[in-house]
């Protein structure tokens, strides 16, 4: 009885926490749907792609590359999504107490945004999986709905250019960047800004030199290493999920 009530509360709180991400996903999902439709994918294929893959940048890559070599497509998607390995590793301490099925479900829906949001909101390890699964599902359904709407609209208005829609992704990253920097605890805020600047510089330099899916991992690795070296010596108790 009490257990049921607690689960219902977690469900509501998780869904509510996901609203900003869900709103962003509706917009970016719409853009992804339009891009997919213009690349020749049917609305049903776009929806399947979003439901099965559920990975924003990988879906843009998919729309771009699916008519070419399958090996290139799958290899590029693997490299583009390899960053999730970092997210899942960073998030692992928070799910330590959960069952294998819940840990699998939470991992399968890990994205840049749900990872960032949950990492910022959670004070420590999850007591139950319900909150996180509700957050993930809200983002997931919004993403899929946006994809469908975009795929339908993109096909219908193919002659009219949809200016600005492709910028939705950049705007989302701008908001998340601010969340990350302003959300960092006091002493680490400056370090977070420096880490962000290093990551941006390395990424842009590498991309301008030779664009490739591993540039993001390289930029992240360099910047995170700089962050550790610049960190105040206080132990990272919260991040370790202790």
């Amino acid at each position: 009885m009490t257990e049921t009530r607690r689960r219902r509360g977690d469900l509501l709180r998780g869904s509510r926490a996901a609203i900003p991400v869900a709103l962003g996903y509706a917009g970016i999902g719409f853009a992804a749907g339009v891009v997919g439709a213009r690349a020749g994918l049917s609305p049903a294929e776009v929806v399947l792609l979003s439901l099965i893959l559920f990975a924003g940048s990988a879906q843009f890559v998919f729309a771009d590359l699916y008519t070419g070599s399958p090996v290139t497509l799958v290899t590029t998607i693997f490299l583009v999504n390899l960053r999730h390995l970092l997210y899942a590793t960073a998030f692992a301490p928070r799910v330590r107490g959960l069952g294998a099925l819940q840990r699998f479900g939470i991992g399968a829906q890990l994205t840049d945004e749900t990872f960032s949001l949950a990492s910022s909101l959670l004070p420590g390890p999850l007591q139950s999986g319900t909150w996180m699964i509700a957050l993930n599902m809200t983002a997931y359904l919004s993403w899929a709905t946006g994809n469908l709407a975009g795929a339908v609209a993109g096909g219908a208005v193919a002659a009219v250019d949809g200016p600005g829609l492709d910028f939705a992704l950049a705007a989302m990253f701008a908001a998340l960047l601010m969340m990350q920097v302003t959300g960092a605890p006091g002493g680490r805020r400056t370090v977070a800004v420096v880490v962000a600047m290093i990551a941006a510089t390395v990424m842009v330099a590498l991309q301008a030199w030779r664009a490739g899916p591993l540039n993001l991992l390289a930029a992240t690795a360099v910047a995170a290493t700089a962050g550790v070296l610049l960190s105040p010596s206080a132990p990272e108790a919260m991040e370790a999920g202790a």
Partner: protein
Amino acid sequence: MSVRPEVLGLILASMAVTIVPRVLPLLGAHRMRMPGPVAAWLSYVPVAVISALFFNEILLAGGHLPRQPDDPHLLAGVLTLAIAFLSRSIAITVIVGVLLFAGLQAVVAGT
């Protein structure tokens, strides 16, 4: 509303290589021991990734660095960052950012 079998195959293959890195660390979470420096390193991953993706998006949208100072991606990107700072809202930032970009693109195209 058709699904081509070869497209479905590509989607499933893409899912397979995506889900493994997503799930593997969480499945081994209860056995994972994370030394302090590693945990600290991982804590900088989100801010680094997001910053790299954002600046890549606004500086290299055309595949090369902007050749004009009135490049819509660059201008809208800087303004959107300010909107993000002021609004602290993902939804507002995305909505205003997209409108701003569309407006700037129209202005630049019109001149």
